[in-house]
């Protein structure tokens, strides 16, 4: 999960115009999302939230399966399966699902990450029962048609080229993950390694499907123009009789956090040849997993360094008379089992990469003293608030917000805890994290056409 949107909520009632205004009540109690939670006997969790502005709704299904669950030989299985989920099931057969959704005015798509596979649909409210029937059908009885499987393999290979081989940015991110998390389940590509994509069989994907596509590995969220009681009943009708996976809990629990710890004892510099005339780089330091209390100060730190024109990196590397970079950014990436802080950017042609790297390292440590102030923290909080409103402006935005918390923390109400944690972030917290993270071993990856 990237920088938490929850952070934005926590300042909803906070004064934003000056740093001296006081908050009169506990911020964690100031925002209350009204959500109906439904727990089915088979272990499935569903969240329902109403918004009657328009006769539409958004449905999100969060399956707790991603590249972290894959083994050598079947890398990319989660993502390949994501593609195949649109190819038909027993009741809604080959080529039917997309036509049914789009023919009614809806849209659908999915994405796969290291930790999760998410399917979503936006539809007119008249289609609620139909889409839930489709989702239940494909969870239980996916076709995995042989002919479609072969065709989709070619599509996935093309997607891989598009996202990695033909994209220096994708190449950079993949290089970072493979090196930072070498030897851990996060050290593979989400789309999969090419030999595995070429060799993976239908049977292997089917077994993988059976392991992870079950009601007790799913968090489902619906937001829109709904009758909550009626929606609950439909959910029970469609999903209530589906059998839970007897092994998925054990499967998930076998992935201990220790398996995901980066084994970075010394700093590393990695140069990758790519089709970029100017050097692109990412520099990363291992941190903490999603939900860890320290992560919230790291989120704030990343925004102070790299968000907005007044941020430290943009001010000191871009908006100067002789710019060193054309883009600079910083973020704290919180994954389910681990996390890392990173800084990245694209340099102006002619800048010496090694000189830049050394300068950046030095400056980052200096920022811990110069850039972290009461005002800079308040500024970040103000920005988060504005972003929150735009993030929750749609049914899909709220559904995603709730689902991510349910999947990662097992409770959508976790945002309350996050509110409190963000509320408590102080200058000394951020400085402490800053000093700590930048004194650790790092990994510096670059892509450039001048590299050998």
């Amino acid at each position, binding site marked *: 999960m990237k920088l938490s949107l929850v952070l934005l909520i926590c300042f909803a009632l906070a004064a934003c*115009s000056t740093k001296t205004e006081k908050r009169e009540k506990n911020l964690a109690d100031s925002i209350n999302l009204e959500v109906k939670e439904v727990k089915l006997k088979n272990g499935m969790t569903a969240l329902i939230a109403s918004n009657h502005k328009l006769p539409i709704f958004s449905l999100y299904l969060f399956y707790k399966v991603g590249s972290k669950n894959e083994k050598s030989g079947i890398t990319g299985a989660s993502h390949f399966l994501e593609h195949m989920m649109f190819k038909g099931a027993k009741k809604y057969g080959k080529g039917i699902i*997309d036509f049914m959704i789009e*023919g009614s005015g809806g849209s659908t798509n999915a994405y796969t990450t290291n930790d999760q596979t998410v399917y979503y649909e936006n539809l*007119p409210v008249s289609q609620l029962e139909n889409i839930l029937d489709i989702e239940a059908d494909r969870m239980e009885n996916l076709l995995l048609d042989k002919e479609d499987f072969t065709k989709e393999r070619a599509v996935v290979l093309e997607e891989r*080229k598009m996202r990695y081989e033909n994209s220096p940015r994708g190449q950079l991110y993949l290089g970072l993950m493979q090196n930072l998390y070498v030897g851990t389940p996060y050290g593979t590509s989400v789309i999969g390694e090419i030999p595995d994509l070429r060799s993976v069989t239908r049977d292997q994907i089917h077994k993988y499907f059976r392991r992870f596509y079950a009601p007790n590995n799913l968090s489902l969220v619906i937001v829109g123009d709904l009758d909550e009681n009626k929606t609950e009943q439909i959910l029970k009708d469609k999903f209530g009789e589906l059998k839970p996976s007897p092994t998925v809990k054990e499967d998930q629990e076998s992935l201990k956090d220790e398996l995901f710890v980066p084994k970075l004892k010394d700093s590393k510099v990695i140069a990758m040849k790519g089709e970029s005339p100017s050097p692109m780089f990412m520099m990363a330091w291992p941190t903490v997993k999603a939900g860890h209390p320290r992560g919230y100060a790291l989120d704030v730190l990343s925004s102070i360094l790299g968000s907005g024109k007044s941020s430290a990196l943009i001010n000191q590397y871009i908006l100067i*008379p002789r710019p060193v970079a054309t883009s600079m950014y910083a973020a704290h990436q919180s994954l389910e089992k681990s996390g890392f802080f990173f800084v990245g950017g694209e340099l102006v042609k002619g800048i010496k990469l090694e000189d830049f790297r050394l300068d950046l390292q030095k400056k980052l440590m200096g920022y811990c003293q110069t850039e972290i102030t009461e005002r800079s923290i308040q500024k970040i909080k103000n920005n988060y608030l504005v972003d929150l409103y735009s993030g929750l*402006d749609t049914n899909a935005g709220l559904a995603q917000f709730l689902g991510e918390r349910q999947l990662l923390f097992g409770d959508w109400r976790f945002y309350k805890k996050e509110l409190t944690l963000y509320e408590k972030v102080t200058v000394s917290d951020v400085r402490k994290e800053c000093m700590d993270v930048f004194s650790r071993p790092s990994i510096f990856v670059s892509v450039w056409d001048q590299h050998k």
Partner: protein
Amino acid sequence: MIKYLSAFLFLTATFAWADDSFLKSVKRMEWDDLKVVWIEDDKFPNFTASVYIQDGALGDSFPGVTQSMFDQLTSGTSKEGQRELAEFFDFYGANLKHTVTHEYSVFTVQALTKDINPVMGKVCELFKDAQFPESELQSYVSRAKSHLKNLVTSHSNLADRIFRKISLENTPYAQPAEGTLESYGKLSSSILKERLQEIKRAKKVLYIAGPKDVTGMEKTIAKCGWKNETALKRHELKRATGQSQIYLIPVPGANQAQIRIGRFMIRDEIGHKYDQFQFLAGFMGGSFTSKLVQELRVKRGLTYSAGAYVSIQRDYGRAGIITFSKTETTSEAIGIIRDVFGEVSNGKITPKEFSHQQGHEIGSYAFGFEEISAFIGQIMLYDHQGRNLSELVSFPERVAKMTPQELAESTLEVFPWEKQTVVVVGDKSLEKTLSRIRPVRVLNYQDFL
């Protein structure tokens, strides 16, 4: 399986959320001589203010002047430098954005409602007193040139840029709204100041969305120094001529080829066929079930995506297909697109395909009003095109009355193969296979930077 499909189509055919209730939230006002459109929205205590300016890249004396002017609007006033201005807007969490099209520009501000006056007040200071300091400008030029030189890393963006230039050749719309390596070197503070003055004189409409408090910005806006004097300069274009070549632009390290196929249309060709052309674009590409995605991806696995568009401004329109394929299957993909154009033009459209697209257009209609920025965008475009908002209300009804014959005619009008410009950005080895479709002209990508 068919019974389920039929059930869906029946539902979509009867689905009709199309009344004018949403228009009740749209109020038109005048603040002195400034036209204002307010969309009342009290979901959150924030606001969006978008000023539509009837002057865009067509008014540039050389490429990129308007875009650069807006890019540098916060680079300094006589009282404050770039850093102070950045600190001010960032502190309030104010989001400033701009879009420059050829015919118009849009400057947008988003912030919390309680901060309307300080934020909009500072925005007005920018319009009144932006100085475009040379030191900041040179830094900007250096970054912009570096960015352009690195455009070769994004074959898709490069293909879009080259396609515009080639497909609109010999029209005033051919030059990019962004600058070029050559034009960035010509920028100066005085040129940007002069352009700002022209922009201030151009006709404007202010679109605001938010709770009632947002109308309180009237007094602040009055200090922006905006005039409403000059209207869009109209251009009469000649019809696109026939195309006899494929343009191949080799790029290093390409294992896929970006494919752009399309053309520009003049006012007479567009007529009032907005709905028909929107329907055509949706039918051809974009969604999983669109014709080209089915033919290219689903049936043959030749690509990951295939988009189609027919975008219409006031005096011209552009229609096109955006896709990519492996180097070895690029020619096959182009051939299939050509065949699809031909077949649909000849009326080879099944009732199922047609009613599916009708269902899609009607059912998706309500989503255009969900996000406030999308809603503003729709109203603004209608206003720019000179259309009545009642057309927005009756769109589903009109789609329900469309016929396959109309779709075939639209395809013939928009996508006649002989008029399509074909641009391929990819490996140089493509020259041989592409020449089986049309003679190939090889161009250097650096000439388009």
